[in-house]
């Protein structure tokens, strides 16, 4: 499946870096991609797409600080036959423009890819106003919307490449934090699939985005204590790969869900919805608990909001303990 686990190497890259690079590649391959941003083309890396060639330059539309218009312009570009990607930060690129995404993009089933960056607490010091923790919940509730949450740079490249070739609306969650590379470059991850990164018998940890790396760190910490966990990367949240989760849970008998997102409406909810219909096992959540973010470094915030490997270790022990009751 291409999971190589390069955490030991020094290379750490943010998933947002995949955006400009992948758009430039896709344009080079002849796909009619256009990028639409709202005064954050440098931060989202869409500017790198534009800078790659004179043709690309004409294919980046900077709307200025006008996110609502950004979504509408992307919608219109898609209607003229282009594959439109929208930028800005996740807090503005999904939340501020929820109605534009709902009523124009999703309702009309347009070929628009919502790919803002700086999702979750990875924004860091900018604080709660900029830390989007409800985006997956918003996007997943929309009919026709595909939702992918890549765990590293290679997964992000694959996600962007995949949605570019998939007709219809899609959301790809991209972050600012530099993350260890887990997958081989060029990996081809699929819509509707989760990926089993590590096998174990005592507990299932299903994670997405930045939490996949934390889960792998937790796996090593727990192994030292004799607890063997399965780690699943829930790359595709919608459609969701119920089979991989259920097969794992049948083996381990308990599950911990980890996401850098509100406990409401994202992967925690998806797992609960899935298991309600199929299996009765202890489920523990590692997620943000009905609160806004705050200023701090990404690493500090991971610990503060109990999203780090240590929190996953505790949650696994709790879930394993509940199995025995």
């Amino acid at each position: 499946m291409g999971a190589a686990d390069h955490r030991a190497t020094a290379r750490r890259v943010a998933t947002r870096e995949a955006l400009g690079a992948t758009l430039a590649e896709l344009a080079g391959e002849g796909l009619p991609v256009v990028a639409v941003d709202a005064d954050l083309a440098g931060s989202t890396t869409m500017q790198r797409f534009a800078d790659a060639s004179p043709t690309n330059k004409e294919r980046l539309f900077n709307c200025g600080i006008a996110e609502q218009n950004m979504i509408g312009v992307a919608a219109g570009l898609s209607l003229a036959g282009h594959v439109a990607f929208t930028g800005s930060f996740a807090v503005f690129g999904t939340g501020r423009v929820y109605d534009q995404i709902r009523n124009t993009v999703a309702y009309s089933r347009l070929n628009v890819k919502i790919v803002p960056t700086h999702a979750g607490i990875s924004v860091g010091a900018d604080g709660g106003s900029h830390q989007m923790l409800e985006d997956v919940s918003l996007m997943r509730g929309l009919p026709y919307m595909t939702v992918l949450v890549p765990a590293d740079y290679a997964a992000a490249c694959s996600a962007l490449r995949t949605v570019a070739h998939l007709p219809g609306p899609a959301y790809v969650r991209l972050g600012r934090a530099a993350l260890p590379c887990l997958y081989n470059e060029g990996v081809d991850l699929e819509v509707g699939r989760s990926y089993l990164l590590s096998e174990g018998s005592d507990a299932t940890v299903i994670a997405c985005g930045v939490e996949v790396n934390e889960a792998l760190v937790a796996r090593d910490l727990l192994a030292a204590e004799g607890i063997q966990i399965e780690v699943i990367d829930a790359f595709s949240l919608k459609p969701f790969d119920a089979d991989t989760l259920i097969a794992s849970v049948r083996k381990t008998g308990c599950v911990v869900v980890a996401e850098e997102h509100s406990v409401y409406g994202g992967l925690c909810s998806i797992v609960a919805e899935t298991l309600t219909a199929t299996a009765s096992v202890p489920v523990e959540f590692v997620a943000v608990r009905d609160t806004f973010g705050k200023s701090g470094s990404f690493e500090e915030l991971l610990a503060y909001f109990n999203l780090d490997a240590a929190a996953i270790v505790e949650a696994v022990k709790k879930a394993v303990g509940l199995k025995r009751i």
Partner: protein
Amino acid sequence: MDTTEIRCTANEMRKDILRMIAQAKSGHPGGSLSCIDLLAALYFGGVLAYDPRDPKSEGRDYFFLSKGHVAPALYAVLAHAGFFPREELMSLRQLGSRLQGHPDSNLLDCVEVSTGSLGQGLSIACGTACGLRLKGRENRVFVLLGDGECQEGQVWEAANFAAHQRLGNLIAVVDANGLQIDGPCREVCDAGELGEKFAAFGWEVSRTDGHDIEALVGLFTGLKAAGGQRPHVVIASTVKGKGVSFMEGQAGWHGKAPDAEQLAQALGELSRNGVCDG
């Protein structure tokens, strides 16, 4: 069609609009009647390029209905243009109908995009205008907005963008009937003279009587041929409920269906007004 024929077709479409809203027992007659002459001029005055047998033909001009609540007017003009049978109009708002309360582009190929949440059509039109230009195509993009709708901030984000992008292939038409749900626009939240606002953003502005078919066809034809470096807006002065005496100028008829008696009276007025006698 010549001007007389267009006028008569618009009159017939007024009747269709009222029949379908009455049948559905809900819908938006006021704005549908105020904008129907604008649509008639665009579709039957030789302005818009379209092919009812091939709604997605590459050579077509794009028309976006930003004020999606006047769907009955759009459906009437699309039916009269031959995109679907007129009989289907009576299915408006029924379960299973392609004619949803607000236009749904997934159900009708001849509807470019779903609308209904106000303020979004101008942005979409901007995007399509950019997209056509990228492809080196000469097709034009028309978009119809309401004057009340221009209270939406997104309209002005798009106005700014269109001028910045020099979208000479974009023509916006404002159905300025002066009324919105809660009353006169200038009393609810006065946006002032809209032409001046568009001009301030760098648009070329025309003002016209939105019920003068001959003037509308002439104006639209000229604007379509002009192109150039600036987007163009037509501020069309209209009368809400135009053509039905008891609906004209009444905000109360924004979103209310006529009952059987009112329908009969309205259809009688439209049959006796002499428009189709020529």
